[in-house]
């Protein structure tokens, strides 16, 4: 049987509960005051029970499961709290200090951990896992226009809906993601990734003629591009060569003397202005050469039951019912 209290606790119980005498506070006559047995006892027994509960932690930013764009400015926001009647918060420290920028420099899965301790040494730790995607620009709305820079961009449509994404110069990656998107890679070696929905690779702003193929998922002319998940092609105002794949494509030549070749699927081939050569290929295609000019376009329906839309007279029309 030995004391429950350390010598330091015994001292503070006596001194802390003393009745202050003389000048206020400790002085050189009465010290901390006159001893009070009952108050000393109270000061010991009324101490709160030992705190065995760790502090709580609330991470507002980054919330668990969220995705940020690469390089996006995101400031950490979190707080810690010891329970009521606890020993009090001793420390609250996250991967970065509250209010400072979190890591979005590189794509991938990231963790953000906040550790807290109370004055009784109980520790708590909460971790948020967030993702930094590779997008340098990320859309938030449906149907918006997202425009990159002259340098290398990764632009993501986000937000669902049909977006228009312009890569401009540089070697860009354009991700349409949900919705029917229109992707304009611009110059440079671009990757156009339509994602879900019926998406279009558009060269409507190209200053040079384009050779684009959905069969090989590539295009040359305005730089050199690759396609993923692209269903439709829109040519430049120059003499383009557009080739479809075995699925349902819409090939739109626009101005210029274009050559358009549908694949096996039921394609829609639109010649637009200029003296175009339009081939429906397999499948039940719709081939449209109407540009208000008689006799300049050639149409070939190919196998299947094809439909044609022409001017009053064309240069050549074969393979239609």
């Amino acid at each position: 049987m030995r004391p429950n209290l350390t010598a330091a606790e015994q001292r503070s119980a006596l001194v802390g509960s003393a009745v202050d005498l003389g000048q206020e506070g400790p002085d050189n006559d009465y010290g901390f005051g006159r001893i009070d047995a009952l108050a000393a006892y109270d000061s010991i027994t009324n101490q709160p029970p030992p705190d065995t509960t760790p502090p709580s932690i609330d991470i507002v930013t980054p919330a668990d499961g969220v995705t940020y764009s690469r390089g996006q400015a995101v400031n950490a926001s979190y707080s810690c709290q010891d329970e009521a009647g606890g020993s009090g918060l001793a420390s609250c420290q996250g991967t970065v200090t509250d209010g400072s920028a979190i890591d979005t420099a590189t794509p991938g899965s990231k963790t953000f951990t906040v550790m807290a301790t109370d004055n009784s040494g109980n520790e708590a730790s909460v971790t948020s896992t967030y993702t930094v995607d590779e997008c340098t620009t990320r859309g938030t709305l449906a149907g918006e226009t997202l425009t990159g820079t002259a340098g290398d961009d990764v632009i993501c449509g986000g937000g669902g809906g049909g977006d228009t994404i312009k890569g401009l110069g540089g070697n860009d990656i354009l991700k349409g993601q949900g919705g029917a998107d229109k992707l304009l890679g611009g110059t440079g070696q671009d990757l156009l990734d339509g994602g879900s929905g019926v998406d279009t690779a558009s060269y409507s702003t190209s200053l040079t003629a384009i050779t684009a193929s959905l069969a090989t998922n590539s295009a040359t002319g305005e730089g050199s591009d690759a396609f993923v998940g692209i269903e439709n092609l829109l040519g430049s105002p120059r003499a383009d060569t557009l080739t479809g794949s075995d699925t349902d494509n819409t090939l739109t030549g626009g101005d210029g003397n274009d050559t358009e070749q549908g694949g096996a699927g039921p394609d829609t081939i639109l010649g637009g202005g200029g003296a175009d050569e339009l081939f429906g290929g397999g499948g039940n295609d719709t081939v449209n050469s109407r540009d208000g000019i008689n006799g300049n376009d050639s149409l070939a329906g190919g196998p299947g039951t094809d439909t044609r839309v022409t001017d009053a007279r064309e240069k050549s029309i074969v393979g239609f019912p």
Partner: protein
Amino acid sequence: MVRARDVLGVAILLALAILLFGIEPGRAATEAGVLSPGVEAAINGTDTGDTMTVIVELEGEADLGSIEATNQNILQREVIQELQAETEAASEQIEPFLDAREATGEVERVIPLWISTSLAVTATPGVIEDLATRPGVASIAPNKTIPEPATLTSSATTAPEANLDLIRAPGLWGLGYTGRDTVIASMDTGVDAGHPDLSAQWRGGTNSWFDPNNEHPAVPTDSSGHGTQVMGAMVGRDAGGTAIGVAPDAQWISAKIFDDRGFATTVGIHRSFQWLLDPDGTPATPDAPDVVNASWALPDPGCDLEFQDDLRALLAVNILPVFAAGNYGPDPNTSVSPANYPEALAVGAADNSDTIYQDGSRGPSDCGEDPNTFPEIVAPGVDIRTTDLFGTYTAATGTSMSAPHAAGVLAPTSRCGPTSPPPNSAAPW
């Protein structure tokens, strides 16, 4: 053998040395040389064939801070064993020399003072001087003589228990905290164990009484009255018609540091501190007291760290050393050692109306610490009705009487804590 006159002579020489050099014997010696001036003076005053007693402080310090124990009993044992092992290791270098001189009769006695990593050596002046040159010896300090505190008693009768009412001791009793199952120790002039208010609470056995002067080796005795008065304020009961002690159910043990003529020596005090840590000389049995009261001080105000290691050892086993603040007031800066060590709880005195006791020592103090307020706390110490010799009662005054109030409160409260079950009469706690 040293005759009484010689002891006094040494004491006077020491006092002169303190006045002349303005330094403290013992601690200052490590800077000025291994032999403190007090010891040099004592050597010069001792015939070559006679012996004298000094404290040989060894190089080395026990590492008490790193001791981790899961309970108080283990803590006590480990602290004692660490202290003893350190002193044993530190004395290895000079042991062959001491053994050889013991064989020739030049060394009369060597007592390990493991509480302060020292040896009490009784030997010829030649041996002492030789020791001073030996490796492993940090310093050699004199065995100083300390007179017992003056007892101020008066025939004034105050209302019984006014001092206890003031500090609300009866309120503590009402909760069941009467000191039962706790042990209070005094370092004093002894205790009159035959007093009806004290006799039942002596712990008894062979580990509850220590007389370093060997005048009353077996039976608690007090030839002064001071120690009996102090003990009465701590554990006295109500045989005289009024309750007089703060913790009337506490047991007591005591070290009679002052001899029958009223003098203590530093060696005897070191040995008494050491006894308090391990009364039965067996570290594994936890028989140290819960509380230690020391109503004594060095002869003059000032700072002398002679006993700092001893107080640190007590703290290491969770014993808070309660010291009378001293009676050197009312001027400022009249604190006295050991009360003014940071390790001690220095208790000043006030009367039962909370008016300061005029003669109590005042602060501030910077002994072993940054300047700090002094005393640390006050308690009733004026005309305190308490036990006296021959079964009588008296009214005693001074900080010697206030300190036991603090010790008496500590005895039960040191045992309670937030998780203690409340005591009741059926189940001792």
